[in-house]
């Protein structure tokens, strides 16, 4: 089946089997390998991308479901060679160790900060509760999101 999607503002087309999962289309067909496959069982959230602005687990969506729709992946965060405040925050606050969960954490946090520009620590922990990290213990991830929230509030994006 022919699928047309807009990813990070760019149009893409692919001919896919209906059973192909969105994450496999992104990684294997379109070679956008920033999105990771973690648990492959809808638990870890490493594969989180935005589908029409909402974070979804791309291992639990068929590529054909995204036909005609808008996607944003981790590759879409950096603009003109400048890191997004979230990416900068994860660097500054040491929000990652192995980095496997990071693309998913970034995308979930990106959508979350759009809705909640001035979050409490509890809000952040709630928002990322569908994204698992086995390295950091989350403390520095929370700090990274707080860093980005502060910068975005000052108009830093």
């Amino acid at each position: 089946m022919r699928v047309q999607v807009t990813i990070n503002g760019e149009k893409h087309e692919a001919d896919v089997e209906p059973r192909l999962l969105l994450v496999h289309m992104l990684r294997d067909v379109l070679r956008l390998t920033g999105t990771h496959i973690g648990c492959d069982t809808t638990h870890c959230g490493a594969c989180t991308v935005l589908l029409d602005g909402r974070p979804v687990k791309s291992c639990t969506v068929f590529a054909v479901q995204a036909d005609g729709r808008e996607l944003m992946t981790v590759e879409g965060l950096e603009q003109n060679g400048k890191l997004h405040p979230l990416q900068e925050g994860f660097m500054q606050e040491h929000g990652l160790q192995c980095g496997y969960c990071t693309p998913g954490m970034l995308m979930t946090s990106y959508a979350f900060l759009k809705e909640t520009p001035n979050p409490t620590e509890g809000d952040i922990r709630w928002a990322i509760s569908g994204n698992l990290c086995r390295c950091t213990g989350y403390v520095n991830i929370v700090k990274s999101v707080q860093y980005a929230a502060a910068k975005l509030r000052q108009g830093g994006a």
Partner: protein
Amino acid sequence: MIPASFAYHRPASISEAATLLAQYGDDAKILSGGQSLIPLMKLRLASPPHIVDINRIPGLTYLEERNGALRIGALVRESDLEKSTLVRTRYPILHDTSRVIGDPVVRNLATVCGNLAHADPANDHPATMLALGAEIVATGPRGERTIPASAFFSGPFTTALAAGEILIEIRVPAPPARSGGAYLKLERKVGDFATAAVAVQLTLAPDGTCQRVGIALTNVGLTPIKAGRAEAALQGKRPDEATIARAAQLAAEESEPAEDLRGSEAYKRDMVRVLTARALRKALERAGKGG
């Protein structure tokens, strides 16, 4: 994990979807949120040859009060329920439930109606809909019909939906004055199924006695369980601590949990007792506040 091959159908209307279901029968499965179906397909526990994706059918995303009932359309996502001011203020039991289903990312796709149609005994909305006395609207080859939640869950993953029928709406009766509800779930971590969970919805009479009580239990039996004896213990009574304790004990007796990694039968039964008492107190508190 790669699901088995299937033919993909994307109907543009309910009637087109119903025609596809009539044509393919048991070989067809409806895809709405897909957050239960797709994992099952990846594990090859389900390999439907035909997938009928209803996500592009217009007019199914309504979440509104009309003619004395909250109407939840087939494509309302759990996150829509969670973020709705109407739901949070008027139907706090539904707000409670939406916040403990899956995780925040899963809830962006998972649908409320799908949570009922899938009928996993571990799903959370079946118990809340039983407690609320909700109705399920199905449409199919023989037209539209309404099924009370209490007659909907016939077994694990089995519902009263007939072949070719589609669940298109849930109707929740609007709560009268002095109503309150709560859903309390004990889970090991976010995204886990309930060790046990309890839904309570009640309405007080002007004299403070219980006019209407609904109590239902999640994941402590092969279907969601309506705790009729616990309800009867409260009906027409003043809900004091002794009455709450008696109702909670009865709910525990009515549960039919099985031992698994989440705990022993005795433990789960006792959690039903504890959660029922807590949910009753919370529902009463909310009834007092007019919510």
